[in-house]
């Protein structure tokens, strides 16, 4: 489990709080710098007929913009910059984690849980601002027999409250499991040596490709679920 360990690169203490710059913080900075740098570089000479790099920048923009529009409607578009930031941040962190000897920030439950909790708290606040107390109707689905209502409402509330947990655990578990698998099979390659190590190596090549897919997919799932939850807050049911 060495690959998941937090190491303090710069010890920092701010008002008695441990604000050390760790390898986790370093990779967050790298991810943010890479994405920002790429997008700004790609748009250095914006033109009507996009260059290759500009196409990628526009593609990512349109991809997330369509995601927000399709899942939250036009009312969700003010939150597009946030969803874009979220998607690109998680995607970059997941992808960076696949580089050997790097650190996967999203394999830490505290990071994913903080993100999920922040998102769902924000969405709940948006819901109450938009609908006032009427937001509570979210927990009372239409067309349910009155007898079942208390039970359904309780279930709805529990499912709403567990959203941050399911959202964060999904990302964290996928990242951790994938990287652990890679580590285990990497160890097999070394242990079986030059003669027997080819089989786990071949497996690892395929599995790495799968992990790239998972890295993208989990960022996508995280972002799209944010859009869906946002849609609940904006339009109720």
């Amino acid at each position, binding site marked *: 489990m060495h690959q998941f360990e*937090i190491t303090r690169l710069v010890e920092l203490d701010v008002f008695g709080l*441990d*604000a050390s710059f760790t390898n*986790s913080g370093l990779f967050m900075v790298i991810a*943010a710098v890479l994405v920002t740098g790429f997008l700004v570089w790609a748009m250095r000479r914006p033109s009507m007929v996009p260059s290759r790099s500009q196409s990628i920048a*526009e593609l990512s*923009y349109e991809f997330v913009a369509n995601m927000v529009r399709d899942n939250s409607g036009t009312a969700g578009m003010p939150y597009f*910059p946030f969803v*874009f*930031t979220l998607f690109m941040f998680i995607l970059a962190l997941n992808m960076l984690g696949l580089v050997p000897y790097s650190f996967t920030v999203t394999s830490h439950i505290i990071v994913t849980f903080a993100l999920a909790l922040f998102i769902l708290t924000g969405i709940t606040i948006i819901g109450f601002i938009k609908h006032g107390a009427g937001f509570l109707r979210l927990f009372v689905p239409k067309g349910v027999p009155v007898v079942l209502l208390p039970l359904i409402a309780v279930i709805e509330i529990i499912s709403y409250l567990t959203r941050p947990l399911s959202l964060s655990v999904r990302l964290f578990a996928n990242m951790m499991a994938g990287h652990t698998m890679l580590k285990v099979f990497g160890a097999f390659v070394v242990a079986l040596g030059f003669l027997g190590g080819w089989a786990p190596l071949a497996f690892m090549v395929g599995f790495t490709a799968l992990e790239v897919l998972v890295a993208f997919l989990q960022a996508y799932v995280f972002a799209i679920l944010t859009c869906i939850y946002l849609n609940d807050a904006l339009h109720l049911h």
Partner: protein
Amino acid sequence: MPQLAPADWLPQLIWLAIVFAVFYVLMAKLALPKIGGVIDARRDKIKSDLETADGLRRKTEEAIAAYEQALAEAKQKAHGIAQEARDKLNAEITAEREKLEAELDSKAAEAEDAIKKAKESALKEVDGIATDVASDIVNSLIGVSPSKDETAKAVASARQG
């Protein structure tokens, strides 16, 4: 599991907040307006180009319609002129023919008159010849020459009978 060491949580959370906030501002204020601006500009350009093309197409259609109308008018005019010319020619031909017919009619009438006169004079001469022949015949039959008046009377009565 290193993930479950609470001592490591705070530095991660603090740097997550800092980096994510800065990253959000960079995206929202720097990168996204640039990309969105280009996409919007392109969409506007395509829209305006399409509108221009539509306007030009409409103008072309108008020009075609005007041309066709002018063509139809010209055809109408040409038809009118041809009709006029034909009518004029017809009238001239008719007048000419009527004049010719009248001339022919008068000539025919004159000829008929001449024929009638000739016939009458011939008939008169026939009477004279018949009287002479009759008096000659009577003379040779009975040796008596009847008077000219008597013979003429007898010829006239014979012709009547």
